């Protein structure tokens, strides 16, 4: 199997064909732009539309009477209960996608078996992380229901979070993405996930939702461990392939 670090026939750079690329450069220099103003024209349109635009959508109304009561109480305190529900919706969506993301990498893992070494993750390693992500789905669902929200609704933050994650998922699912590429995709997700949990805990505490904050602490600690492990595997993959000795030791699984 061809690996991405082997020299092949990559034709994208100008050095692939010096004669053709010189002609392309000369052609570009000859061609005068037909409008002036540079990127400021694009910036003006972006600003104008951003000033006019509404959000991608809104939060659903409270799903239960209990929810209405809770919302009313919190609003009286001058806080925004829907902000918390919006971010909880994002976390729930992220964790659901996270389970699928790990599945995509786990399914391909045996294809990368040949390069060996103890530093690469096993199916069991990734499965353990995936099971944590699945548990987190339930933790967030319960929190949303506690606040009277509807865990099946796609909140605005969940929607845009999904857009952010779409590239990560594309890489993980691509049969041509190698182990290092796939781990890099997982690392991107874990970095965001770690901050997501931390933010939720701080916010829940600030809004007086101590019970919810406490229920998230274990998830945050687990996510931190995921990040440490994925980061180490990424490092190890790259270093081993480069023939460089690693200074750090890998953390043990819990």
């Amino acid at each position, binding site marked *: 199997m061809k690996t991405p670090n082997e020299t*092949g*026939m*990559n*034709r*994208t*750079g*100008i050095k*692939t*064909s010096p004669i*053709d*690329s010189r*002609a*392309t*450069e000369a*052609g*570009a*220099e*000859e*061609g*005068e*732009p*037909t*409008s*002036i*103003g*540079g*990127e*400021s*024209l*694009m910036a003006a*349109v*972006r600003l104008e*539309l951003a000033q006019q635009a509404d959000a991608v959508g809104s939060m659903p109304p409270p799903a239960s009477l209990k929810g209405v009561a809770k919302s009313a109480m919190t609003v009286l305190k001058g806080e925004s209960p829907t902000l918390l529900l919006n971010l909880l919706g994002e976390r729930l969506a992220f964790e659901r996608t996270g389970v699928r993301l790990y599945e995509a990498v786990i399914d391909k893992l045996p294809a990368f078996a040949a390069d060996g070494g103890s530093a690469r993750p096993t199916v069991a390693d990734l499965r353990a992380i995936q099971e944590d992500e699945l548990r987190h789905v339930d933790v967030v669902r319960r929190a949303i229901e506690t606040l009277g929200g509807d865990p099946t609704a796609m909140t605005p933050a969940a929607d845009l979070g999904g*857009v952010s994650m779409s590239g990560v998922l*594309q890489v993980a699912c*691509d*049969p*041509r993405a190698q182990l290092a590429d796939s781990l890099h995709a997982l690392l991107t997700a874990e970095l965001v996930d770690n901050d997501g949990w931390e933010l939720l805990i701080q916010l829940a505490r600030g809004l007086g939702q101590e019970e919810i904050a406490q229920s998230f602490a274990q998830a945050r600690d687990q996510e931190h461990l995921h990040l440490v492990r994925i980061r180490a595997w990424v490092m190890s993959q790259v270093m081993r392939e480069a023939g460089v000795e690693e200074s750090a030791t890998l953390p043990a699984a819990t």
Partner: protein
Amino acid sequence: MTLDLTAQRGTPLPQQRFTWREIAGALPISKLDDDAFTRVRVILMNGIMSDALRFKHIANRLDGSLRVPLAEVRRVEQHMQTMINWLLPADQSPIETTIGYEQVAIEVTASVAQHEPDPYMAQLYRFGLLEDFDHLYRYSALLDRLEGKDANNILQSYTDIRPGRPTEVEHRAPVDDVRRHYDRKTAQPITRLHAITLFAGEYQTHDYYMHVGPLFSDPIARMLYAEIASIEEQHVTQYESMSDPTETLLEKWLLHEAAEVYNFWGCVQSESNKRLKAIWERFLDYELGQLAYVREIFERVEKRDAFSVLPRTLPTPIDYSSQRKFVRDVLEKEVNFRAVGTEIVPLAAEKPGSPSVRYREHINSEGSPSQIVAANYQWRPGGELIEQAAVQATVH
């Protein structure tokens, strides 16, 4: 080398079968390693097959007696098109694919313009060519300014990135997009095959931009796709009107199959990727089988020899190589041309207050996305930021 159509029966239609793994399970081409002309062929052939389906659906609405044979051929072509289009890789973003589409429009049209024996038709190809050439420049600016990427990674230095006839002035009143058609009794076969190839290519480009335009979040990207899709619609109008409306439906079907054979045959001869070459060879045989199938229907229904319509041997195939020199010559001589009615005319012949001028003044009155996106844009290797960063580093 040529292909004698009278001697070819191809793969019989009932043997033209697929499995889902064949249709959609093959790995795509490499955006990085495959030659840009491999991508050009994939995009063009997707367009040809997409028009094969489109034509047959319209025919289906017009002639009840042909519905079953149309459906038989269409089913195979549906799967052929899928297999071709699925060769494009997922790491190729919609704008990168767009750059590929414009490279098709430039290099294929330039080759066609040089091989077209009818001087009026050749003029129309050169006219359209300079407009697509400008689109490439505008989309390259978008790719750079939106994603920080270099369009030449896709073009591989085969195609210039510089303004053509500015998109802003390509907007015309509908009356100035309709052209004269070739005469079915006197036109050479290549003229008819070229017209089908070009309107198929332009139609899919239009449909692609209409499909991907709303996928962008950036306002200028959305507006640029809308603006250029409008020109592609004009191009479809231009190229479609080359076709003689007095051709019978069956004659048009026969010619469309011949255009498919002609184009797969051209791909077989030029393909550098062995895996794709095998696909083109298989599909050439499939198309020859479909042509034989339609020939039989044509001769039975119209009671005339199919070769009174078809060429006995295939004409010179499309030249899949950089047409830079030709494009530059045309750019130099014809960039200021305009269309008035069916004719291509010098700039001065387009009078103030004419339908196209009035149309253009209104549609551009709140700004032109193509001018906004490319303001002061000149392509540089690696994109304009490489140079800006180097200048900044020198200053600090």
